């Protein structure tokens, strides 16, 4: 796999960002992290991801605001997978038209399976 899929992880909990980034890097993904929606949008500008893992509750710009701002941008949009500790993860995912969700606390294998399913880069 010469062309690694790019995964952007957005979560306000630094410990979660750390281990998710490590686990994905171990699998050969290219990973960047952001602690809020604003930072995530800035990263996307210069580094368009293939998949976004998005926490919903964050300061500064939360998951809902990020999803809205991202959708309003022109150009190709990476699919979003919601990472949440809320009870209604599926409903939240539908709300922002995410392609899937991973409910916290999750097993790394489950996370990797979802990422693998949704991070196929379109043929160039």
């Amino acid at each position: 796999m010469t062309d690694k899929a790019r995964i952007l992880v957005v979560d306000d909990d630094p410990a979660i960002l750390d281990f998710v980034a490590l686990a994905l890097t171990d699998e050969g993904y290219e990973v960047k992290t952001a602690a809020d929606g604003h930072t995530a949008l800035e990263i996307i500008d210069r580094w368009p991801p293939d998949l976004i893992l998005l926490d919903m509750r964050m300061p500064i710009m939360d998951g809902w605001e990020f999803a809205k701002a991202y959708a309003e941008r022109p150009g190709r949009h990476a699919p979003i997978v919601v990472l949440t500790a809320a009870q209604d993860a599926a409903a939240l995912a539908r709300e922002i038209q995410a392609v899937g969700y991973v409910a916290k606390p999750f097993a790394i294998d489950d996370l990797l399976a979802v990422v693998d399913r949704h991070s196929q880069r379109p043929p160039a």
Partner: protein
Amino acid sequence: MVQRTDLSPGRAEIRDLSPDMGLDVLASWFASSPDGIAVIDADRIVRAANQTFAREMHHPLPEIVGRPADQVIVAWPERMADIFRRVRETGQPVSGGAYPFVFRDQPQRGTTCWESTVSPILAPDGSFRGWLFVQREVTEREQAEAERNRLLAQLERRAAEAEAVFRALPDIFFRLAADGTILDYRAGTATDLYLPPEQFLNRRMQEVLPPPLGDRFVRALQQTLSERAVVTLEYPLHVAGRDQVYEARFAPLGKDEAIALIRNITERKQAEAERERLLKAERHARELAEAALRSRDEFLAIAAHELKTPITSLRGYAELIIRRMEQGRISDPLEVRRALETIDRQADRLAGLVNQLLDISQLDQGTLRLNRQMADVVDIVRRVVATVQAGTTRHTLTLHAPASLSAYVDPARLEQVLYNLVDNAIRYSPQGGPVEIDVSLPDQNTVRIAVRDHGAGIPPEQRPQLFTRFFKAGVRRPAGGLGLGLYLGQRIVALHGGTITAEFPEDGGSRFVVTLPRALAQASGGESAP
């Protein structure tokens, strides 16, 4: 005989009549009289009778004349014989009234009533020649009279009933003229009259009652008279030294009078108000219970969410290290150490959340006990400041405090409260900056600890909820934690007999001030271990 009939002025007026014509008049009257008339001679033989008599006696006229009177007049033989005897003896007429009689051959006529007059027929020399018998049926008159008497009796009974009702009713009764004049009144058992009764009579309600009420009475009176319907009016009036509520019912009486029945309904009104109050209280209690249920559900959702976050990284790091070990990726033992340190921190965080939940539970059950002792408050504050400063490089914490300051507190609980305040100051100043902590002594018995940040502050609309459960400033609970810190802090400080207040300085940020009594205080709801 004809000449003996009294035709003197005043009884009748007959002039210029020849004796023959006089006789004809008499004969005509005799024949056509509505009264039954018979002439009976001294031997009690009927000598003459008219058609009316014959009809009433149920005999053809020819059969009557010449027969003995007692065979013709068969009703009440003894009494008739007595009357005939008395007339003959006294030479005076005898009248008898309204004798009942039932015709044996005409039972359908029912009881008939008869009036009769028996007069003597006297010769010019005064000698007795016979009797003139005149009778008239008065059944209808008697029936009408009986009916009238019956109605009168009924009316009297009704009046007596009404009188008894009025006497027994607690109502005050007025009879009113159309202009409001009080024509009559009855007070029944009512003792709470607005004025003595003698001041009511023949005065108009507008004059007797206070003006606005008098006007309302007049309007109600006019309405009941024009609509011919009962009109009800409810009004308050200060009577017998207290505020009372009355109900007046107006009803038309005849064409231009009305009655008003006035009842004291104060007790009923009070009962209604009491029932309303109870209903409201019950509704309120139900709303509180429902809110408590909602709040509990919300609490569980938030608690679950907050607990899951540290568990996620705990589990994630543990799994990650295991995977890396299995894949032979671990080259540096420091890497394992960092992961274990993260796991340790997350476990601490988890324990802190669980402790907060337990604190809440104990507070709710009233079982949270303070372990108070004389302790150095400055020492506690210093420790908190040092701990928080160690976790941030972007914020500068400054402490202004005397060297030491003793107070009777639970040191662990106070540290918990102050840590939460200082940690909040950092958390809500994401851009970094100064945080000032002041310990002072406003008076010898009071300690004051103020924590001032220059961060985001609290939006004005959210300030009233600041010390409630689950409160987190900003939209969608940006900061981590259960939102229980200030709530717990306030409760713990209250147990010490102190207060926490929040101030929002003009130039932004927040200032939280804890005020504590230094000695064991007459605490508000404060409980403390000995």
